[in-house]
């Protein structure tokens, strides 16, 4: 339960860039999964892949619903996120730098189009294989690769525009 909730919440958080909204969508995902558990077939891939598909569908619904009144920069973007315990070994200055960079990348992510954003999140943040992403997005592998590539290039351009220099 905790493992699944962590993955779902992280996909939502990286997509919407807002903790409160991400928590609401995560709850919706679990409710949807709980109600439609009978429709799950192993043909959908693993349970985690199926759950990620449900998450993705709800995120796209949420994106369409809030398209009009969306603000590009939310208050949560500036708030530091609670990193996991692996970050405890770092020096405070290193951690601060990483948090700043992470905030900038997160901010750049939310400016991507939803198609490119979801592809990049699944590949580079959730470390899914191309075949798994293909199942989640229900598009051919060529399209998946193309979206990931374009998403990365767009992200690099946005970050460059924001003044984040390549190390």
């Amino acid at each position, binding site marked *: 339960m905790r493992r699944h909730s962590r993955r779902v919440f992280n996909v939502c958080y990286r997509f919407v860039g807002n903790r409160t909204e991400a928590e609401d969508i995560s709850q919706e995902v679990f409710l949807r999964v709980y109600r439609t558990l009978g429709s799950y077939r192993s043909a959908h891939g693993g349970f985690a892949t199926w759950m990620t598909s449900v998450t993705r569908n709800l995120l796209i619904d949420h994106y369409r619903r809030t398209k009009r009144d969306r603000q590009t920069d939310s208050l949560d973007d500036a708030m530091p996120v609670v*990193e996991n315990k692996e970050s405890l070994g770092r020096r405070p200055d290193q951690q601060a730098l990483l948090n700043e960079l992470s905030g900038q990348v997160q901010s750049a992510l939310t400016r991507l189009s939803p198609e490119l954003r979801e592809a990049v999140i699944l590949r580079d943040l959730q470390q899914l294989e191309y075949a798994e992403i293909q199942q989640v997005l229900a598009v051919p592998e060529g399209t998946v690769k193309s979206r990931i590539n374009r998403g990365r*290039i767009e*992200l690099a351009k946005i970050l460059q525009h924001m003044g984040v220099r390549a190390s």
Partner: protein
Amino acid sequence: MTWTCDQIEAQLSDYIEGLLPASERSEFEAHAAQCPECAPLIAGVRNVVTNLHSMEQVEVSSRLVQSILNQTLGPQEKVTRWQTLQNLIRGLATPKFAYGVASVMATFLILFSASGISLRKPKLADLEPSNVFRNVDRRYHLAKAGTVKYFSDLRVVYEIQSRLRQDQNELQVTPDESTPKVTPENKEPGQSDDRSHQQKQQNRANEIGRQFEMLAAQCPAVLERSFR
């Protein structure tokens, strides 16, 4: 053939992930080395991928987990002490638990009997390591001596049985030549075949006695213990 900037852009992720074949890779690098637009783009994308990979998972608040549980499984009921006790008793009254208890008790019984602890008259002194060791050692040697004696007795009995069987076979195959043959010609009036039969039995008894003496000479210790 020299690659164009569009081709470089299209193959950028494959290049970064090391999925390009060697020939295409060299074409890619040849273009990247001389193109002032593609070089910073490649560095930027590489940087983006590195940054994305270094981003850590965000921790989920316990409030969210609790909220999900409440919405899916319903609010958690408060469990009273009495219900806890009932659940505990229900858990104990299972065949699995009974088998477990029985096997543990059997193990302890075996250990107690092996270490010489009397369950009828338990003494605190029996639990001392030196006493336990002495009792275990004594029981071990008693058991060993008993086993050795049993197998040695068994061996003597088999020996005697086999020799008796051997004598019986010899008597049946070759009748004793020392016994005078009674033929109808030299048979005295009134003499019956019982006499030769008695003679045979006597010979057999003598032979068995002789075998016993030989056996006693071979293994005096064993016989002494067996017939004591």
